């Protein structure tokens, strides 16, 4: 089993790579490859899209790799391969993002990515640090994860889903901030599982065994 971590020059892939490698080793299955090659993505059994940074810049960087998005899209939307987006990689699943300017997302999960606007002015933006998850639905990737478990977040925008059924978890930060989205063979986490210690590694491990 081959899991492709898509590298499109967006942020730090090292810790994500190490977290996926470690869990693949513990499960005794599969290889993790960091790649920008459409050919490699096309033959991967699972795809992970990480990313840090601003929505428009990340989208542009991804599309600057000729054929890369097309390869991801074909694998995910036509072949139904399991897909996980992390942070910006999750936000780009939306219909559109409103960071700096309006940018079209993949529109795989309906909704918009909007600025976090906590009602309490004492709450800082970015939302940075450990927050506890409120689970709203069961999912194979969330097996062993409970409401109250902590995950590590760092972001200033968040994903407002159009259909509440697509939101699997939120955290409280002056408002309900989307933490996990999912639809069919697609899942996305706003937080960084690779930096979220026990709960994060469990999610990574579950994803590697997920058969949607």
């Amino acid at each position: 089993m081959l899991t492709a971590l898509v590298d499109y020059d967006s942020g730090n892939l090292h810790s994500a790579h190490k977290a996926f490698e470690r869990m693949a080793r513990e499960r005794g299955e599969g290889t993790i490859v960091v790649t920008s090659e459409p050919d490699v993505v096309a033959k991967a059994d699972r795809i992970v899209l990480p990313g840090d940074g601003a929505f428009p810049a990340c989208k542009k960087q991804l599309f600057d790799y000729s054929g890369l998005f097309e390869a991801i899209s074909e694998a995910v939307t036509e072949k139904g391969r399991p897909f996980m987006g992390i942070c910006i990689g999750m936000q780009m699943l939306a219909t559109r993002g409103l960071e700096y300017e309006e940018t079209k997302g993949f529109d795989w999960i309906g909704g918009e990515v909007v600025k976090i606007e906590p009602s309490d002015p004492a709450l800082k933006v970015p939302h940075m640090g450990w927050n506890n998850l409120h689970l709203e639905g069961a999912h194979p990737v969330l097996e062993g994860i409970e409401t109250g478990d902590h995950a590590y977040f760092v972001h200033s925008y968040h994903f407002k889903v159009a259909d509440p059924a697509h939101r699997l978890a939120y955290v409280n930060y002056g408002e309900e901030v989307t933490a996990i989205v999912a639809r069919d063979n697609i899942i996305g986490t706003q937080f960084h599982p690779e930096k979220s210690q026990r709960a994060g590694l469990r999610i990574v491990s579950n994803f590697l065994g997920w058969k949607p």
Partner: protein
Amino acid sequence: MLKTRIIPCLDVADGRVVKGVNFVDLIDAGDPVESARAYDAAGADELCFLDIHATHENRGTMYDLATRTAEQCFMPLTIGGGVRTTEDVRNLLLAGADKVSFNSAAVADPDVIARAADHFGSQCIVCAIDAKTIEWDAEGNPTKWAIFTHGGRKAALDKDGHPIDAVEFAKLIESKGAGEILLTSMDRDGTRAGFNIAMTRTIADTVNIPVIASGGVGNLDHLVEGVTEGHASAVLAASIFHFGDYTIQEAKEYMASKGIPMRLN
């Protein structure tokens, strides 16, 4: 809800922890990776490595440490000390750091923060500010703080030769895109007399990015004060944890008992 973070900081020189870490079960207390693993297991919320020599020749050692730490600790790692250019940021991120902290280079050229944030995102750009109280009012309350560099020995001056005001500088680097401020009170650092609360609160209330309080922690009440009175989003400490005065868990439980939201599980 979002939890207040406790961040142990390790001073590193030539690939070794400088002050030493006094934990049981540690095979090699001078090895930063061993110490990082111990803090990871102890429930630290983030880790910080400060390269205190940061000479060009030993950069490779720091990259190697970042790589080895990231292979074993699945929590955020900040690296600072001697970071001057966006190329330094890139190299540290590629090696395994999650955030990179500028200090003197940002005082000399605040635009380096903008260049780094544009490139890598604000979320991974920390700006460390070292400052001291320079003015008090008639009642002796501190009213003005100035930036110092070179470990607190040298007052930073603007182009007109005036001290650089810490509050104005914090606003400036926020506008340049810094994602977080690591604020160290140089007049408290190493004293164990507690944070410079007035300075911490003034800056935390002025900027809208998280402020990490640093410098002067001697007991657990100091950590509490940094948050409740200083309004810091996170507290950084070195010696009280390294020398085993308190465990991370004790600190977290104590802060929680004072009503501060902490990550206890």
